[in-house]
């Protein structure tokens, strides 16, 4: 193969190909941006959800957990923890999360430890709202089952 292709042909494939597929990527991105509002329910991003995302980031939760399958693999997936631990009920989930955050770290010897973050009630509530909102994103039905 390499005998029939000259260097200038190779260069043209590089310039032409990468330009074409970069523009294709931009086009797909524009289309995705048009479709996303339907899928991410951005109208339901309240101030509390925004606070929750800030708390999530300021405590680097992603350093142990995954969220929609991305992040670390040391601790459970949290995009569906609302369904798993809260039975998809907001009241139940908020009560659960409040208790959970307050009893860390668990004392079981050898168990993977989650730090105590000393969050306020408002912050935990925001975190819950952020995770509830996240669980409702249309993610093509991932994960395969409730265990995440």
């Amino acid at each position, binding site marked *: 193969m390499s005998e029939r292709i000259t260097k200038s042909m190779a260069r043209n*494939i590089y310039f032409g190909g990468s330009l074409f597929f970069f523009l294709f990527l931009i086009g797909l991105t524009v289309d995705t941006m048009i479709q996303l509002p339907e899928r991410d329910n951005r109208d339901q991003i309240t101030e509390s959800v925004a606070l929750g995302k800030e708390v999530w980031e300021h405590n*680097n939760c992603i350093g142990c957990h995954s969220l*929609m*399958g991305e992040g670390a693999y040391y*601790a459970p997936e949290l995009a569906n923890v609302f369904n798993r631990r809260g039975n998809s009920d907001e009241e139940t989930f908020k009560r659960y999360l409040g208790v959970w955050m307050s009893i860390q770290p668990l004392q079981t010897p050898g168990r993977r430890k989650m730090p105590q973050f000393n969050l306020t009630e408002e912050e935990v509530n925001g975190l819950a709202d*952020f995770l509830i909102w996240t669980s409702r994103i249309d993610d093509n039905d991932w994960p395969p089952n409730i265990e995440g």
Partner: protein
Amino acid sequence: MKFESQQVAKPYFIFALILFAGQIIFGLLMGMQYINGDTLFPHIPFNVARMVHTNLLIVWLLFGFMGAAFYLIPEEAETELFSPKLAMITFWVFAAAGVATILGYLLVPYAELAHLTGNALWPTMGREFLEQPTITKLGIVVVVLAFIFNIGMTVLKGRKTVINLILVTGLIGLAVFFLFAFYNPTNLVLDKYFWWWVVHLWVEGVWELIMGAILAFVLIKVTGVDREYIEKWLYLIIALALISGLVGMGHHYYWIGPPAYWLWLGSFFSALEPIPFFMMMLYAFDVVRKRRINPNNKIATTWALGTATMAFLGAGVWGFLHTLAPVNYYTHGTQITAAHGHLAFFGAYAMIVMTIISYAMPILRGREDGNPPEAQKLERAAFWLMCISMMGITLALTVAGAWQVSLQRLPESGAMGFIDTQIQINPVYWTRLLFGSLFAFGLVLYFASFFVSGKTEGKTA
């Protein structure tokens, strides 16, 4: 060495390797925490260790790329570096910012660090690989701009070779896509969508240009094969890398909100991504077979061939393993991902940096004809130890991942929970830790090889 100013590459290489050692120490710590969660808790929680491990990785690779550029760009351009002084300033600023940031991770709780650096004013922290305070990110931009200005001016005043142009294009791309790190909207889906414009478009885009250029440079030097021939291959490889890799980014858009057509696009284009890595391997071996010279620095050739091979395994084979949407549905965010991440980062980017170091460092130290045979022998042992133990780590994590998928993901009802699954898998994590320790031993041998002196045999250059 052809030009005095190439010397500025040396501190970059040395500092890169020091950070590499730090990365491995924190890798081992996490390997232990995986088995016993009490290890160093609460002093260094897992998330802090992980951040230190991955950020040191990225920063040492950047130091390595910068050193590579300072070494090879003047030589290719056949002129002195535009400003060696600026190169030393960027070195010290980058080193200081890097060390300060790592110390910040280790000494202050992360929330405190976010508070101290005013993250609320311009939130960019708390996202994987982009954990650095906003001020550090701005510092990185300044350093990279000064660096690109320096090498750009050098290229402009000198000979414009294909290798130089591709290397500079890759480095500019690196800088441009890093700017997406500053975009962090409240909407998590948008945040994630453009987060990949840094991460994926780096490792499966512009970094491949950087890697291809460095590999081509070293191959020309160690084989003496015709530049025209090597440059043609280089163009073809990076062409296919971008043609497949740009839309191949869709393999990250399956399950984070974007529309379902990405399942098809991501699967199709990313399935082509192994091709450029395969070509890189083919051509590296082909060029070495056609070699016209046989320099005394034999180990540099070993590194070059090793990089091409391990990059193909890590990115090509282990990437393909989980890239098709129906497979990724089950493997997404499991130990399979970690297996691939390790072999790909090591095989492609850690090894390309060690390749250029293996070629250039002896010359920078006044050993124009390569290191003495005793040193090369030790370096060769280190090469094999690191490659084999990284394969061991990868295979262990692949077993862990397959096991995890079968317990936790595959069952439609009655699947095992995350923590219980991890407890089951524990024996495999011991294997990973064993290979991790072997890797650390390999790294120690590698460092030791720099201190072996001896008589260089044969002709002088």
